[in-house]
């Protein structure tokens, strides 16, 4: 198999798999046709595993032949460190979400659409990671956006879900329009949209480049949930089915961040401190995310706001690397991308498992509140433990992985040897403690002896839902005590980012 064939298969497989999965589900969708839907689910898992194998083979090829790329016309799709880590994260999380959703989405109307759309989301994110020109970046980004619009509004009989979906759609569309303006400006000035060309073309003065940069940051920033562009996020992440919430917080907003980084990487030579903008947004995100989460009583909304804060940490890491040339910042940012996807993914899946047993399995589409969690640990020990572990990990408590990734980002901040950055580091650390102010009471509630009414009347926890919870919990602790186990991924990505920015 040639490198091109493997690489093209990696990109195309999810998009071939999606219609197959959908058709199979649709055609066998007769009342109570269990075989049909089970086959659909199994096929989804199968395709994801095949995609994983393809990824492995592409990596091997790339390592032996010194690179992997694919030319479509004049535009290259390049397999570098950033693409690798994004692909790994989306495939792993996607597999966990699929396993989770087998029981969670059982008997939901339009279940086959769910799996098909999940596959297209995963495929578009992988493609987004490989993009090396503005057209592809925008194309895969929009494909991801469209897939997620439909997934957010999946419960289309519930008004809150529809509202969340519409807000997400409109705001994302505004963002995409801004991105288009930015791309148009760049193309009109330089005549090219390939990143490798643009690195050489943008000179240090270029005022239009700065304006385009701002437009790209804000445009992609809507998807990345920069504050104040974030207002769609609490609704969308809390109304979506829990597996999709996990995907959204865990990888979709991070894909937006990666797109932003790719886009502004061509402006490395422009005389403007892009890193400072990222650090500024980062601090705003961390503070607002934590403060808003403090007052939430619905569990999924609380987790959604907490995602804002964690995107803030990633922005800090990338900001430190761009402003001061610190490699640790980039590696740390990607490390936090990885650990956050696992911890937030686990949090949403565990909360989703509880939401399922307490409400959804009885066809009640009500949100999971903090009061519902009282005493959950006695009846649902694994889900409660998983949620507690995930949430304390998000608060930066060892031995979970969040501690190590935050540490690496803060190393970059201190190594900058700049007083203002030291203040930012202390600010970020204090905010981590602030987040414990809403995480810790949640954990305490679950370990009460008096159960809430919801817990008393909750149904049995299905077996398969537990599996991804256990896998993710173990992974989080392993990475937390052995951070170097994933350094090969994060360092590669960090190097790729610095290479593109400081080219």
């Amino acid at each position, binding site marked *: 198999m040639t490198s091109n064939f493997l690489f093209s298969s990696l990109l195309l497989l999810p998009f071939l798999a999606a219609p197959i999965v959908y058709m199979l589900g649709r055609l066998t969708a007769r009342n109570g046709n269990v075989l049909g839907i089970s086959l659909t689910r199994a096929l989804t898992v199968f395709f994801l595993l095949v995609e994983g194998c393809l990824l492995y083979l592409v990596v091997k090829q790339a390592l032996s032949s010194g690179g992997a790329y694919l030319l479509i016309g004049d535009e290259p799709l390049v397999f570098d460190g950033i693409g690798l880590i994004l692909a790994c994260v989306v495939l792993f999380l996607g597999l966990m979400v699929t396993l989770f959703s087998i029981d969670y989405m059982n008997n939901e109307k339009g279940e086959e659409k769910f799996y098909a759309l999940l596959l297209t989301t995963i495929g578009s994110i992988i493609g987004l990671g490989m993009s090396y020109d503005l057209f592809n970046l925008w194309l895969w980004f929009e494909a991801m956006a469209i897939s997620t619009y439909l997934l957010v509004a999946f419960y289309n009989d519930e008004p809150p879900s529809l509202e969340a979906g*519409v*807000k997400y759609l*409109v*705001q994302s569309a*505004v*963002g995409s329009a801004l991105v288009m303006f930015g791309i148009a400006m760049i193309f009109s000035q330089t005549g090219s949209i390939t990143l490798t060309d643009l690195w050489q073309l943008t000179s240090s003065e270029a*005022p239009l480049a*700065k304006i385009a940069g*701002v*437009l790209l940051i*804000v445009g992609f920033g*809507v998807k990345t949930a*920069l504050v*104040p*562009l974030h*207002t*769609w996020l609490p609704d969308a992440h809390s109304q979506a089915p829990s597996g999709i919430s996990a995907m959204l917080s865990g990888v979709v907003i991070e894909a937006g961040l990666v797109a932003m980084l790719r886009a502004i990487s061509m402006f490395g030579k422009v005389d*403007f401190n892009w890193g400072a*903008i990222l650090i500024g947004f980062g601090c705003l995100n961390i503070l607002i995310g934590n*403060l*808003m989460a*403090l*007052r939430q009583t619905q569990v999924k909304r609380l987790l959604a706001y907490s995602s804002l804060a964690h995107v803030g940490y990633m922005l800090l890491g990338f900001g430190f690397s761009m402003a001061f040339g610190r490699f*640790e910042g980039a*590696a*740390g940012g990607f490390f936090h991308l990885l650990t956050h996807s696992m911890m937030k993914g686990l949090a949403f899946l565990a909360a989703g498992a509880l939401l399922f047993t307490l409400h959804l399995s009885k066809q009640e589409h009500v949100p999971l509140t903090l009061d519902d969690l009282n005493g959950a640990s006695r009846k649902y*020990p694994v889900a409660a433990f998983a949620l507690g572990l995930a949430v304390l990990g998000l608060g930066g*408590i*060892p*031995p979970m992985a969040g*501690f190590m990734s935050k*540490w*690496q980002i*803060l*190393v970059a901040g*201190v*190594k900058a*040897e700049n007083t203002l950055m*030291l203040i930012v*580091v*202390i600010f970020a*650390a*204090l905010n981590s*403690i*602030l987040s*414990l*102010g809403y995480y*810790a*009471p949640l954990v*305490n*509630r679950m*370990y*009460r*002896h*008096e159960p809430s009414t919801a817990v008393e009347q909750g149904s049995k926890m299905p077996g398969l839902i537990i599996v991804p919870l256990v896998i993710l919990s173990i992974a989080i602790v392993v990475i937390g005590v*052995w*951070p*170097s186990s994933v*350094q090969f991924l994060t*360092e590669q990505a960090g190097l790729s980012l610095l290479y593109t920015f400081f080219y």
Partner: protein
Amino acid sequence: MTPILIALTIGIPWLGAIIVWLMGDRREELTHWVSILFSIGAAVTSVLLLPNASRETALTIPIGGDFGDFTFVADGLGIFLSVIAAVIGSLAVIFSKNYMKGEASLGRYYAFVLFFIGAMVGLVLSSNLLLTFLFWEITALCSYALISFHNDDPKAVKGGIKALIITSIGGVGLMVGALIVYAYTGSYDINNFLANYSTIPGNILALLAFGFLIAAAAKSAQFPFQTWLPDAMEAPSPISALIHAATMVNAGVYLLARFYPAFKDVPYWSEAVMIVGALSALLAAVMALVSNDLKRVLAYSTVSQLGYMVYAIGTGSVYASQFHLFSHSIFKALLFLSAGAVIHSIGTRNMLEMGGVGKKLPLVKWVFIIGALALAGLPILNGFWSKELILESGLKNGPLWLYIVMVFVAGLTALYTIRCVWLVFFGEPRSEYHAHAIGWEMIAALLPLAGAALVSWLAAGRFSVLLGEKSLPFHAIEPLPYKEMMHEVLSLPTLVVMVVITAAILLWVFRKKLEGLINGLKSIRWAAENSFGFEAINNAIVKVTQSTAEALRVTQTGILNWNVFGILASVIILLAILVLGA
């Protein structure tokens, strides 16, 4: 040998923690015994480390990258603290078998206790600052989980979260310090830093020194972070004994002791340390005097005695500070466990409802008195020798006025101690209570501690060698055989202190005649009962944070037009920044 022992002393309790957690609540008796077994295992391996003290890096786990290598050094300071953690840990676990009988969620209880013991040992044996911080945070996690063990009690949950947040805020000081050490010396290694600290620019070193002081003050409940420890008394008494008296709160003092050689020349650092210690000692002693809750009195007393240790480091005598840490761990654990026995038996913590308990629980009375005499600093108990060494160091190297304050506090200590003993064990019962007998497990935990309080000071010489040149190359601690120590202590300044203590005891005995004087001090009493305003500050901080958060909610309008406006406004603001910056 040493690397294996280190790995075992951390690994055995951690393995026990996993096993006990998985055992859950199914078989109570077995859970107790498994926990006791694992804790005794850790105690044995930690004691076996004693003869092997050395300054060499004993165990290295290569991690690489920005995380350094996880290294462990079994030097005297680390080994002695791990012995305290593991041995007193096992006594607390043995005590728990009786104290926690019939409680639910025992799996979670013992898992966190064992997890804590391993983490504490790791904290003091680690020689990589990142690893030290990692273990520091794990002990904070365990402390929080155990304080709020009774999750249904809002006071316990509040106390646990308060402890977590206050100690973590202080922990930022340690974290920033560790990052600075890494950024400026290229390595997390502690001994490397102690050898090369002069390569760090002065103002950065000062930042480091004061950062560590803040971390130590928060962890050891010193001024101005002392408010979490009294509220942590919602934890079961064995936890108060282990974590909040004998081990975790010592982590702050340990940090100061370990890094003293690098920071002693930082301008105003030693003075700041002395003042923090003295203020904590004074304020806490006054608060202990007015409190009616048995455990709170002991909690304030812990803050006060830790103040002595911190003060000692400020005056330059790391040995005196650690010697007092050694004595204090023993007698404070003894006091807390005996208090636990009383509370478990009687059913209340309020001293005003007790009285005459000594008649019902004579053994507990005697061991408590031994602990109290050690706390008050009366000869010949261990507390006497160590406290006098601290005061000697203070007289020699510290300002005179601070020394006078510390002697005064010694008097206050004696006063609140005798008040406590009297109110609980003597006199007539002030309420209807039923005292049921204590189990053999409690006796088995109390007796060794009482014996140790009587004789541990004899190990002064061995102790000084343990902390000496061979294992702590940067601290310059001279060997001090116990006979020489006795000679040093039995001198005029000590006589002065004894007079003060006797005066305090007489004050109590003749308290009825001094009612006028006591009434005159009413305003101080009121201030002390309100923790000198620190609780008010804590509440204010929480309120401001919550109101800011509540006020921000208006930004989530739910109206799409406003949301899109936010996007466009960001573009305009950023463009404005661009234009202005140009």
